[in-house]
């Protein structure tokens, strides 16, 4: 193990001028460089108005990081953010929960039945390839501009990564392992409990990570076009009144939520991968 790693390092040094360093030093270097670039860009952005003169019209659209942060701080300090955030979070949570409730059983079902799989395949392919956004006007027509059209978009966005990954995990279950537990007298339910479900868990978690990202995206776009409340609505209104700070503050909140939630799922993923050294599943 240690041997192959050393070999890898050595060979990868061929590609660059890098000398062989310890893994720790490498990590420090990568973090330092990555942070430095981001900080540097933020500083340049902040100082830009001092070096570049902008037309009146352009200045309307321009803001600097410090002002965005101040706005963000103010939104939280005054508590004005909680109501719209709560509205968005509700749609997110309901939609994601429904997607999990529908996606997992359906994924397992399709994974176990070749015939059903073949019949559903065209629909899954079509819906998965199409940006779910295209259904938004229709959903608004059917469900109104309240929380349910948002829930529907979140649901449609999150459903397919969950369904497809679950399906993949179930189908991928090792025939040999199924035979092994059968040879010990396992019934159909034992096979599911002992082999099929544990095998598909890592796939499901990857699906969940993708689904979280899609769900947040769903909330954002749904609120842009057809909602009365929510963080996205706040952003569109701010944009149309040239309140650029609020738009960026909203983006930061969405991005932070997205990073935090996918990060949490990643933690689960890594914990799960204790028994398998290689990466689990398809994205």
């Amino acid at each position, binding site marked *: 193990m240690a041997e192959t790693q050393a070999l890898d390092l050595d060979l990868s040094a061929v590609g660059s001028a890098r000398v062989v360093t310890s893994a720790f030093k490498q990590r420090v270097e990568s973090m330092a460089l990555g942070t430095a670039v981001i900080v540097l860009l933020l500083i340049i952005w902040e100082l830009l108005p001092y070096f570049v003169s902008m037309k009146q019209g352009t200045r309307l659209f321009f803001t600097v990081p410090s002002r965005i942060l101040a706005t963000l701080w103010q939104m939280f300090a005054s508590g004005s953010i909680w109501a719209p955030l709560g509205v968005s979070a509700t749609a997110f949570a309901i939609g994601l929960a429904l997607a999990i409730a529908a996606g997992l059983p359906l994924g397992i079902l399709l994974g176990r039945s070749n015939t059903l799989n073949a019949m559903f395949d065209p629909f899954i392919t079509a*819906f998965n390839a199409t940006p779910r956004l*295209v259904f938004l006007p229709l959903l608004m027509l059917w469900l109104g501009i309240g929380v349910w059209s948002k829930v529907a978009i979140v649901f449609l966005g999150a459903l397919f990564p969950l369904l497809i990954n679950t399906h993949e995990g179930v189908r991928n279950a090792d025939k040999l392992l199924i035979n092994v537990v059968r040879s010990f007298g396992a019934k159909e339910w034992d096979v599911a409990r002992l082999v099929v479900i544990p095998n598909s868990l890592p796939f499901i978690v990857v699906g969940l990570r993708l689904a979280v990202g899609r769900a947040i995206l769903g909330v954002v776009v749904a609120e842009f076009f057809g909602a009365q409340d929510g963080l996205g609505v706040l952003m569109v209104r701010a944009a149309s009144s040239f309140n650029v700070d609020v738009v960026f503050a909203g*983006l930061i909140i969405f*991005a932070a939520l997205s990073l935090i939630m996918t990060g949490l799922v990643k933690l689960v993923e890594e914990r799960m991968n204790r028994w398998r050294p290689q990466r689990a599943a398809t994205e």
Partner: protein
Amino acid sequence: MAAQDLPHASFIERYRNAVLGGLAVLLFFVAWQALFLIVPFNPLFITKPSLIATGYVDLLESGDLLHDLAVSAVPFFLGLFAAVIVGVPLGIVMGWRVRIGYALDPLMTVFYASPLVALAPLLVIFFGVGTAGKTIIVFSLAVFPFIFNVSSGVRAVDRLLVNVVRSLGGRERDIYLKILFPSVLPYIVAGARIAVGRALIGVLVGEFFAASEGIGHAISRFGDIFAIDRMFACILTVMVIAVVLTEGIRWAERAAFPWRVGR
């Protein structure tokens, strides 16, 4: 032992699946049409396949559909093209020069993970509802799949092959042309498959906002005037285009890079 002529079997298996899938789709549309024999039909909220077909004919005869598609295609392809032009070289550099990778990876990850669509209102107001605004939205969504796929493709390049070329007297140029590019090509195509979907989102977002033409605008306008049949016709068109694009790329991947099948 029971699996010796598997390729043959899997061909027939696939054929069977196609038939089943086709039947299911047919059944779906027939059931949809038949449903309204039992259920009362409210044309303001729902439609049926026969009406969608009529709507299609209308849209095709008037030339509206083709016009809207053409309008949407321009920012779609321009944005994608720009994403390739920027994303592929950036990805190669980030993958090949380790320090540049270190420096830019976190920044790009933040961009990739954040719902950049959230900037669409700003971009639309700033650049307008025409081609420019939409192209920029498409670009900003589509560029990241290229960057990340290409850089991980470069990192996955077999260093042994690089050494082989070097040991045979190859220069830097040979490494790029004979090793890097062919190895990365599949990753570019895989990136394109993801980028196409995001580019479609970009076009739709741009056109839902405030456009006066384009397929996205058509869908939301038909919704506003309760022209459900034509709305469905447009939605189905977008679905077909999305499927043709992504499955087309998938097919191209299999045809062009058979050595990657099963990876």
